[in-house]
């Protein structure tokens, strides 16, 4: 693909990535309709990373990190931003080459820009997951995470999935050469990212840090825990996993409100992990027999 003459707008960049990964056999999914901290939480990644069935999907996931909010004042910190997430199971042997081709597709020339794979092993304590991989640097800036999943929900990934996570705002700021997220061209017709999302950052930062009712949050956390268990009892692991997503976000909000002490923090993370692991375990238990029938060489 030739280098575009003008830098891509935010939305055009997403469209290019969709076209690229669609052409490489990925299902183009839509964002999951729940509040979550990263694209990895989407069941299309967490649950689909388990079991032997091949899976290829790409999607944009709005990601919320309440503690990163800066009321829209910081040029590159946001409490709500977008991740472009690609999951390929099993990882193809040319995944690095595919990834580099996707960068070229959005206008990054690897002979003008210094692209590097720098060690960064990924671990999610709340998902009971880990993998090995890199953060990908473009001229010293981290633009993506590249991970080979080894475990999810405490279970070995068989086979291993390759996960690519692009930080869309950072990448767009880089491609467009702007220093503040507000100045990003959202489209090619003069609408800026700030026009679309600045109010959101201001209001939601205030909500996350100042307004959110901590009593309801604690209450909500406990209810999500209980609901997760009810779903597990009813053998609907996907529904149970949604409650794990919910609990995880409520925990993030409680952290932003500063009401969880250092000692309590580990205990809350452990509780979320238990929900996520329980859901993964139930998911496997429910489909294990079918997987074994379809893939005789697969064992848990």
């Amino acid at each position, binding site marked *: 693909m030739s280098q575009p003459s003008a830098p891509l707008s935010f939305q055009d960049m997403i469209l290019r990535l969709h076209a690229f990964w669609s052409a490489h056999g990925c299902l183009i999914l839509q964002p999951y309709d729940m509040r979550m901290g990263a694209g990895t939480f989407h069941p299309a990644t967490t649950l689909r990373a388990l079991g032997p069935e091949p899976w290829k999907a790409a999607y944009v996931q709005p990601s919320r990190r309440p503690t990163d909010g800066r009321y829209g004042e910081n040029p590159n910190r946001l409490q709500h931003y977008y991740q472009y997430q690609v999951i390929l199971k099993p990882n193809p042997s040319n995944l690095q080459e595919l990834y580099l081709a996707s960068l070229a597709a959005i206008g990054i*020339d*690897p002979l003008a820009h210094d692209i*590097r794979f*720098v060690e960064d092993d990924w671990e999610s304590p709340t998902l009971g997951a880990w*993998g090995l991989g890199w953060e990908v640097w473009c001229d*010293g*800036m981290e633009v993506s995470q590249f991970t080979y999943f080894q475990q999810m929900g405490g279970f070995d990934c068989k086979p291993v999935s390759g996960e690519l996570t692009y930080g869309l705002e950072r990448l767009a700021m880089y491609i467009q050469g702007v220093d503040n997220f507000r100045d990003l061209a959202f489209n090619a017709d003069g609408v800026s990212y700030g026009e679309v999302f600045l109010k959101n950052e201001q209001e939601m930062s205030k909500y996350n840090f100042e307004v959110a009712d901590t009593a309801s949050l604690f209450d909500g956390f406990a209810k999500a825990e209980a609901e997760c268990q009810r779903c597990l009892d009813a053998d609907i692991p996907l529904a149970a996993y949604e409650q794990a997503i919910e609990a995880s976000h409520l925990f993030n909000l409680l952290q932003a409100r500063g009401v969880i002490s250092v000692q309590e923090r580990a205990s809350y993370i452990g509780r979320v992990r238990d929900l996520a692991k329980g859901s993964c375990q139930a998911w496997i238990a429910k489909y294990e027999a079918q997987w074994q029938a379809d893939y005789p*060489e697969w064992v848990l």
Partner: protein
Amino acid sequence: MPDFLLELRSEEIPARMQAGARADLEKLFRKEMATAAVSLGDVTVWSTPRRLALIARGLPDATAAVSEELKGPRVGAPPQALEGFLRKTGLSESQLTARDEVLYAVTEKSGRATIDVLAEAIPAIIRAFPWPKSQRWGTASLSSESLRWVRPLSGIVALFDRAVVPCQVSGIAAGRETLGHRFHSTGPIQIDGADDYAAKLRAAHVIVDHAERQDFIREHALAAAHAEGLVIVADEGLVVENAGLTEWPVPLLGRFDAAFLDVPPEVIQITARTNQKYFICRERTPEGAEQGALANAFICTANIVATDGGAAIIDGNRKVLAARLADARFFWEQDRKKSLSEHAEGLSRITFHEKLGTVADKVERVAKLARWLVEQGIVVPANAGTAGRIDASSASGGQRSPVEPGTTELADVAQLAEWAERAARLCKADLVTEMVGEFPELQGVIGGYYARAEGLPDAVADAIRDHYKPVGQGDDVPSAPVTVAVSLADKLDTLVSFFAIDEQPTGSKDPYALRRAAISIKNLVERNSLRINLFVASREALTNVGISLVVAAARSNPRIDEILSKTWPNFPAYHGGIGEIAVTQLRGEDLTLWKSDVLPAIAPGWNLLAPGRLSELSESLRSFIFERMRVQAKADGLRGGIFESVTTPPTVIDVYLITQRINALQAFIGTADGTNLLAGYKRAANILKKEGVVPAQAGTGGRIDATSASGGQRSPVEPGTTNELSYTPEPAEKALMDALDTAGPQAATAVVTEDFAGAMAALATLRAPIDAFFDGVTVNDPETAKRTARLSLLARFRDAVHGVADFSKIEG
């Protein structure tokens, strides 16, 4: 003889693992070759982010034939034994060889082609490779038994001479094709053999020799700095890391906004280095590389020769650095909106250890102890001079007395005490700042900057900055008095606190780094010639811990606080003498409450303050520090037993004195006089031991008159003096008596005045007389009077030596 080339190509290997991987590859390869009896010439290993390579020179074409013999049962052994042996060897009875009535199975192993050995060795090496962290990948990872590698393994080049070694691992077959640089080279490269490997890769923009890349980075980063009139801040770790991140390194110099130079240089350096792997530069000055101010320049190491000469790369990196420095400057400005003492209030929210209260509690103890160290004259103002204080001609010796009012030092001492206490109160405040939250490794340094920025005296700011030093052996040891007081107090408090809650190091476990703290204490004392009685100082620090724990318990319960305050009017300023507390002051209900509520609540601190417990713990602390000193002395190459010889029995508890004695003794034992005197001593001591004449109790204390040779315990020989002799002594005997009459008191006086070199010189005068005595005089004379007198003379000699050091402990 043929050479062998092995290249294991993979996705990017973490830079930090490459050196270990090279060593492991060579080790595993040598092991495989040794097992198969393949002789080797030179072995070279190289690494880049995408490959590990090994070249072995001068391998044979085949290994030599060997004959292997396995011993079997005796001839005529029961049939079962024979059958078992045949089954094991796979031979028939007729194929066995009999020798000396024993059956042997002899197998002739013909030599093997080296290429076949290699074909087996390569998969074995790959499967056994000990990566610190490894992963599975791809379709094969459907099974958890699939191959593990640091990142996906993508290709194997294995060439013996010019032939491909036929082997495969997990579906990857060895061949002669490899890939060049990720962006500067397209398509596979055909390798003929070990000799064209590096050159063909170089043509494909890969410098395969890591050492060459390191040299290149070092030289070109330097050149880039020089071209701008700057010098580079040398950083070998960064050179190695950048060489591990590139196959074709291109150092590029960029500039960042000079306004960021307001931020402390350490912050800029750590941001650039740790987060971005950039070198930083200083302005060139005539005084040298370390003197120039930090320049607003950075050097990044790209992995490509960019089409635009690197302009876009430099600009991109500049932006990333600017964003990080903007964060740092934000912290720098936010933090300084509060004073350090305001920050310090936040320490009461940080737990130091669940049994030892908060960091604020610790700071309080350190502040008290730092002041005490000054008031006791252990740490003295700089202008008091250290050399004069330990002047050997001054007979005062021992512990310095507390400073007396009216001396000229008073103002300085009062100032020092105040500054030490103040610095101690602020020394941990930066732990709760944003900057240290972001850059934890800058603890202390940041506090020092904030202290200076708010106008605190330099001595206080320096103490805040440097009080963590020395961190272990080899680190700079502070010498500024305020810093010494705070650092010593901090380390003493840490050490005694954990002893107080029974958290002494055990075996290999030392989670609170107490051994390191002990060595730091020793180094502080030595470097600054401090006169400190470790027993007394430990007791003081422990008392602080006890009081601190009682205060913390009282703080948590107002009722306990109230009752405590009735029995302890000066609480919490009360200091010492806790055992005599007037519980009798309590009446009726108070006494009941004291017993039922207060005492259990304050037990951890209260029990610690019991005089017996204080003494016991102080003694174990002293012995712990001594043990660390002994281990360190041994590691530093001190002759075995010298440490023990000056600390047995442990009557000298002044670390500085021990060091002085050790140095003097080590020097003396190295001389001819010392060696011979030691030999004479050992001979005398052996005779006395055989005869049951026990040493005097003076030990190494040297505090008792060494001329008095009377032992503390009864011995069969009552040592006498020359005046009491009932016979005319031999000349050599008389000479030794005379020498002892002079040398004994000389040595003893020298010890008292801490002139250890003088003490050694006095002992040296005994060398010739003791040698002559053993040459010319028979100790075991048939006449009892002579025998007794000569044994007492030897005992006098031994005790005179013991007055300086217990030579019996010295090895060799």
